[in-house]
């Protein structure tokens, strides 16, 4: 509370300063010398005009932008200095000295110490920044046919680990900045788009730059939401000049990166017989049947039956232009993305309008309206036992898909006990549509030259509509839990960020102070209407009146009130200091207010005399920072005990049900498990030191950071004892650390008139360790997904697999010892830690870890004349995966009856004469335990992108009044170097950081081939 008051006073003080300065301005209005008109053109080092370059008169606020042809016109005093700046290029200052025509060549800057970057609630020159951040530019984004914006972060920035959750269409990847900062909560960074907190644009083509804030000096300004890092996105705006039309399209073929090597019908039939013989049962398949399979094949390749090659299409049309007073950019995007398994797709239409209006010399207004209309069909296969994708590899290859009459065969005697995967995929429907609308208005008012008031106000509305059909043809219907449902939810959100920025330079000192008052609130509500056991399913999911109804509804509302004070100070453009404190008041917690301070310092040695003359080192900056941030992993109403109104099993039927009829419902309202009264945010204390160096005028650049992050108050769903209703409740239990080192090396090894090679390598090393669990040490955590357990243990990293250590098979010579375990030669052998001759949970041990030793991205561009070849490798080293998918292929685990992997053919299994380490079929229940047998090295290097693009020469295009035309072909995930035998080492279905690296039936990232065109009029 105290901090809140102090910050509010600070804010009022800033207001007072505003009013005073305002008065002072009128008193001291100075006459400038008469202006002259300066014109010119800005080009890059290859002589191509650069549109959108900001041209400013130094020391004033007047400025303009270059038009499509890179031309500009500006009024300036004849002794003025003009400053040219553009993202990705080194800033350039030119003193007029009477010149009225200027032709400027801007040089690309890899490290970009001179470029102006977004820092949150303002912009700063990179040379002045004390924190650690990385930039991804539109140019980098355009190299790949990206469908979800977060994919652009993969491989392009150090300290950022991006892994695909799964390869379903419309699926965005997981992004983790400098390790996992929460054990059960959200570990994704906070996205801020044009000042709209918590939002990311859907169409990657609308993005101008992405700035990734990594250390606390950068992220503490976002307080209780900053601890996972912050991704600041600036979208494209209009340029000065005549209307410009850009058309961007690509067509892509997506396919499974590989198929697993499974048994055909002949091998499978032999294997089933082998299994039957082990228990004295008569063979399942006769010799005649075996011969038939051997000679004539038959049966079904279930992978082939379920997979499809999908044609993905993307279109984007943008119109932009503007005058001195109004600039605009409108864009329309459309994506049609079928999945790589049958009957799945994602479609998305996006609309965006950016308008910049200059109200007068001191006020301007930016209005952004955006709409996103995604559509999902059956994108609900996140991985798991019953997903068709998982069942396809477990299904009986001797079984046809349909019987002679054309009807699907629901079950097969030798398949898993689940359901025909092709039938399930083709019959079920899980359809979602959404309408997300967003309006952002940013009002800028330069009260005096040194003082600016900015207000960003955002209003968002979102509406979802879901329809589900699980009637005939689905496993739900088969097990009499058939239903249809319709559900809808609505979200409205409001954000108002208001801040004053005071910039002043006196002598060698320069100061920028920012005071912010911000409120954000959101309300969501929705309902689910569900009908069970419909009398007819002929109307699909369209008529809920045909079955027994089950309804539920939700409502949630929350608010955040924030204050921020930030001061940037620099001395002689060499020494920089940033200090900030943010106080967040949240409705979610009992203790409403928490404060998050930070401080960062840097030394820019470039301006020191000893470096100014250096021919080798062109830039050198050293940084250090400290700060605290939080993680809002506590939901609304978490500290309020509740009487529950469950939507399933919400009624009791005292008179019982009859087949097809529910009986008389009596509503039940159980008392929920208790709540913790003292919940707090997860708090991160972060330290960072870094260095940025550029050699040989930027031909070689190097950025490195070392950091140490301590996260305390870790939130955990703490299990409640049975007598406290079981289940879990949220509590702050412990702490962890993430320590790491990351660097990126960039350069332009070769530049000649026609040829240019640029390269960038970024490497990230993070070490994660749990340091305290508040007495819950050795917490065994089930993934809830049939896979192996994970363990939470002090001193160990997150993502530890926990189970038996597999030692191969008992050999004939060990028969006596095996008997002590009730086993026999050929059975599986595990490490018996406590030596009690029984395999129990006391023999569990850690089996591997999902977190990599390091991750990297390696990007190269080779340009020869108009031709550019780009490739990007991305990878990780020293990580492991637990593959339940592969475990199930051996049969016997869970509900899997028969082996399907080609490795389980009879001659590969243990026999007395051929004692392999693959256990023979046996009645021993321990042959099929989750164990280290299914832990695999998941290190990989992936060719994420390979593309060849050709820019049609401007001279040819002029004749057909086309401004620019670029055609390209590319491929993604073309090959992967990995020892892992499963589909894709990158994917897993971890619910949280504890169970990361566990994979079960997850659809892999597709291998894709793309042809695209970029056209500008």
């Amino acid at each position, binding site marked *: 509370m105290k901090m809140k008051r102090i910050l509010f006073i600070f804010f009022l003080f800033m207001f007072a300063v505003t009013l005073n300065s305002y008065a002072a301005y009128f008193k001291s209005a100075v006459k400038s010398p008469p202006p002259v008109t300066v014109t010119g053109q800005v080009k890059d080092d290859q002589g191509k005009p650069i549109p959108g370059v900001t041209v400013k008169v130094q020391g004033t606020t007047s400025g303009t932008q270059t038009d499509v042809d890179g031309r500009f016109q500006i009024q300036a005093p004849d002794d003025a200095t003009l400053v040219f700046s553009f993202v990705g290029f080194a800033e350039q200052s030119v003193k007029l000295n009477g010149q009225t025509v200027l032709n400027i060549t801007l040089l690309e800057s890899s490290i970009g110490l001179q470029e102006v970057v977004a820092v949150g609630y303002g912009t700063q020159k990179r040379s002045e920044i004390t924190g650690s951040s990385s930039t991804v530019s539109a140019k980098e984004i355009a190299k790949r046919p990206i469908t979800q914006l977060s994919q652009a972060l993969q491989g392009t920035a150090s300290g950022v680990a991006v892994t695909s959750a799964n390869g379903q269409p419309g699926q965005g990847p997981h992004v983790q900045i400098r390790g996992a900062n929460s054990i059960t909560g959200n570990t994704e960074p906070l996205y801020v788009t044009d000042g709209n907190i918590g939002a990311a644009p859907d169409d990657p083509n609308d993005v101008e730059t992405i700035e990734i804030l990594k250390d606390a000096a950068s992220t503490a300004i976002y307080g209780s939401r900053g601890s996972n890092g912050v991704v600041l996105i600036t979208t494209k705006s209009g340029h000065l000049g005549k209307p410009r039309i850009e058309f961007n399209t690509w067509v892509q073929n997506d396919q499974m990166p590989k198929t697993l090597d499974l048994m055909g019908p002949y091998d499978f039939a032999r294997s089933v017989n082998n299994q039957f013989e082990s228990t004295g049962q008569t063979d399942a398949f006769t010799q005649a049947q075996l011969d038939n399979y051997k000679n004539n094949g038959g049966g079904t390749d279930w992978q082939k039956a379920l997979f499809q090659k999908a044609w993905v299409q993307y279109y984007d049309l943008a119109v932009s232009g503007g005058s001195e007073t109004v600039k605009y950019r409108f864009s329309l995007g459309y994506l049609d993305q079928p999945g790589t398994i049958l009957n799945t797709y994602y479609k998305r239409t996006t609309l965006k309008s950016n308008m910049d209006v200059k109200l007068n010399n001191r006020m301007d207004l930016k209005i952004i309206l955006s709409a996103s209309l995604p559509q999902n069909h059956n994108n609900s296969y996140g991985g798991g036992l019953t997903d068709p994708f998982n069942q396809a590899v477990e299904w009986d290859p001797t079984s046809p898909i349909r019987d002679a009459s054309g009807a699907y065969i629901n079950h097969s005697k030798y398949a898993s006990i689940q359901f025909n995967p092709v039938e399930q995929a083709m019959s079920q429907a899980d359809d979602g549509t959404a309408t997300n609308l967003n309006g952002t208005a940013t009002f800028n008012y330069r009260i005096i030259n040194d003082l600016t008031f900015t207000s960003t106000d955002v209003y968002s509305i979102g509406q979802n509509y879901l329809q589900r059909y699980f009637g005939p043809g689905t496993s739900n219907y088969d097990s009499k839990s058939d239903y249809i449902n319709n559900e809808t939810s609505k979200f409205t959100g409001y954000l108002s960020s208001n801040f004053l920025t005071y910039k002043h330079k006196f002598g060698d000192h320069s100061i920028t102070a920012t005071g912010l008052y911000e409120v954000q609130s959101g309300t969501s509500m929705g309902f689910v209407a569900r009908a069970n056991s419909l009398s007819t399913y002929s109307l699909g999911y369209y008529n809920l009146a045909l079955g027994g109804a089950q309804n539920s509804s939700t409502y*949630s509302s929350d608010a955040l009130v924030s204050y921020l004070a930030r001061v940037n100070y620099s001395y002689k453009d060499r020494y920089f200091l940033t200090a900030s404190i943010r106080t967040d008041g949240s409705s979610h917690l009992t203790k409403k207010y928490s404060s998050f301070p930070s401080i960062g310092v840097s030394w820019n040695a470039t301006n020191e005399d000893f470096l100014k003359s250096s021919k080798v080192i062109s830039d050198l900056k050293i940084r250090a920072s400290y700060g605290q941030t939080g993680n809002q992993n506590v939901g609304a*109403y978490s500290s*309020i005990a509740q009487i529950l109104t469950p939507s399933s099993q919400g009624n009791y039927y005292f008179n019982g049900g009859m087949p097809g009829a*529910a009986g008389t419902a009596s509503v039940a309202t159980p008392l929920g498990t208790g709540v913790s009264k003292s919940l707090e945010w997860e708090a991160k204390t972060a330290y960072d030191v870094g260095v940025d160096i550029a050699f040989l005028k930027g031909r070689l650049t190097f950025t490195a950071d070392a950091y140490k992050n301590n996260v305390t108050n870790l939130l955990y769903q703490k299990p409640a004892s*049975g007598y406290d209703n079981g289940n879990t409740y949220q509590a702050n239990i412990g702490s962890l650390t993430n320590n790491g080192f990351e660097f990126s090396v960039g350069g332009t090894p070769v530049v000649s008139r026609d040829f240019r090679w640029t390269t960038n390598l970024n490497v990230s090393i993070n070490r994660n360790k749990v340091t305290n669990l508040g007495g819950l040490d050795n917490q065994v955590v089930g993934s809830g997904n049939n896979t192996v357990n994970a363990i939470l243990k002090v001193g160990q990293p997150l993502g530890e697999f926990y189970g038996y250590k597999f030692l191969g098979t008992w050999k004939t010579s060990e028969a006596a010892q095996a008997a002590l375990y009730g086993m026999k030669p050929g059975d599986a052998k595990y490490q018996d830690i406590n030596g009690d001759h029984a395999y129990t949970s006391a023999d569990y041990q850690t089996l591997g870890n999902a977190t990599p030793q390091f991750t990297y991205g390696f990007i190269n561009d080779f340009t020869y004349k108009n031709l550019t070849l780009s490739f990007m490798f991305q990878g990780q080293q020293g990580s492991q995966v637990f593959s339940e998918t592969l475990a199930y292929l051996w049969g016997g685990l869970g509900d899997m009856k028969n082996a399907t992997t080609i490795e389980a053919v009879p001659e590969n299994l243990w026999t007395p004469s051929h004692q392999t380490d693959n256990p023979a079929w046996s009645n021993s229940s321990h042959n099929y335990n989750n164990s280290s047998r299914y832990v695999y090295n998941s290190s990989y290097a992936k060719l994420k992108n390979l593309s060849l693009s050709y820019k049609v020469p401007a001279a040819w295009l002029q004749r057909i009044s086309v401004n620019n035309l670029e055609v390209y072909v590319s491929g993604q995930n073309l090959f992967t170097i990995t020892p892992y035998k499963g589909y894709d080492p990158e994917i897993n279905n971890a619910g949280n950081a504890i169970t990361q690296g566990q994979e079960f039936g997850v659809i892999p990232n597709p291998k894709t081939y793309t042809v695209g065109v970029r056209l500008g009029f």
Partner: protein
Amino acid sequence: MKTKYSLLLAALALIVISGCVKLSEDPKANLTPQTYFKTQSDLDASVNAIYIALARDGAWGFTSKETSYFGSDDYTTDPGLNKQDQRDFDRLSGGSSNSSLTAEWYGPWQAIYQADNVITNYSKVNSTQALKDASAGQAYFLRGLCYYYLVRTFGPLPMVLTNLDLNAKPPRADVATVYASIISDLQTAKKLLGTTLAQGRPTTYSASACLADVYLTMAGWPLNQANNYALAAAEANIVIQAGVYNLSTPYDQVFTTNNSPESIFALEYSVAGGLPDRRFGSSNVPLDEVALDGSSGWDDVYPEINFFKNAPVCTRTDLTFYTTLKLIQPDKSFVLTPWNSTVTHAQHPYYKKFRAGLNGDGVNETATQILSIQPSTNKALDVIRYPQVLLDYAEASDMAGGGPTGAGYAAVNLVRARAGEAPLTPGLSQTAFRDAVVYERAYEFAEEFGMRWFDIVRLQLLPAVIAARDPSENSIPAGTVVAQKYLAPIPFGEMTLNPQWTQNAGY
């Protein structure tokens, strides 16, 4: 001037904005304990929550509720497949990490948690005393019943008779204390509950019937308080004398219909209502049986071979066991195959009585064809059937005094008559009569949800049961300390959360 106004406007806007945002929470769509327990419907809905906690799939609605009972001879399961949890107990090797065992722990505890909530708050409600008593009576009955199952399965328990603070860590009270509380709850329920039979709800007779069984158990291991035999006989006699239950239903129909005149207390199920009973149907069907519609058996649970072979020869035995498998052929015809044929997967008999579910909503079949096999049924789960009261009475009256009584013979012979057996040999000794009743219980209640297992526990029968086992059953490891297997281990997770507890011996 214009700018001055806009500044004022901005300042005003800020004040308005801050006024709009409140940090206090109002969960409009959620009920909270502070605002609840105002009306009888609040109370009714809270009582209903107890039933669901006990009846649901993760509690008593599935075979996992019976995991620790697999040590008994009326239960076994597949040597492979996904049955390890049950198989471990079948081999008397179950451990505390067994994930199915948790259904036996959490089901009753979650029902107790809801019952505590009702018992603490029912008097606040604005309603009639009669209605409030009826609600509280159900809560006391269900709480007593749940503690009764818990104490027989896990031994000493924490006494939690009101909802606790999350930081409270109660100790395990000794078994005698737990039984005292069970008797107190059931006696209270007996007073509060009425005599009118209402499907799905207990009556005062349900409380007496349960009390009779509780007293009989207290006379055996571990309390061995013989004075309880008389109390057991007296409570059972109340139910018998009331004359409201009878055995007029043919034995097989007890398992294919709901609410028969012998049902004293049952949990009710509704598939369409989202609360299926999955104890009947697929669970009891051989893996190799496939129906015409492609559905197949789960092979979860079936009897041990010698339990079947030692059954009395009578119609009840024929209706209980399933001995001829119907194996589908590629041409959709079925080949009738005896259970011990090597063509079959398990080479065990199965239970017939659990196949059909309610009117065939489990297995729908004829003598020569299986039409469909479903796991989710509407079959009510009989927790107390009248034969239990009769056999409790027969045994208790025999053991309370100097041997079998005429009324005791009459009681057991009622059960035998319906089973198609001749009356029990007259003039048996006290022990012989007791053993005959226990044998009768084994087959009257074959695999009925732990009845046989709890007889094995209270009478310490494991050595005899093990001796009778066919060698082809899942093997019991050498060196198993049988005396420690009468109690199941407290689930591992609960031990972690309650470091003040000591695990049961042998785990």
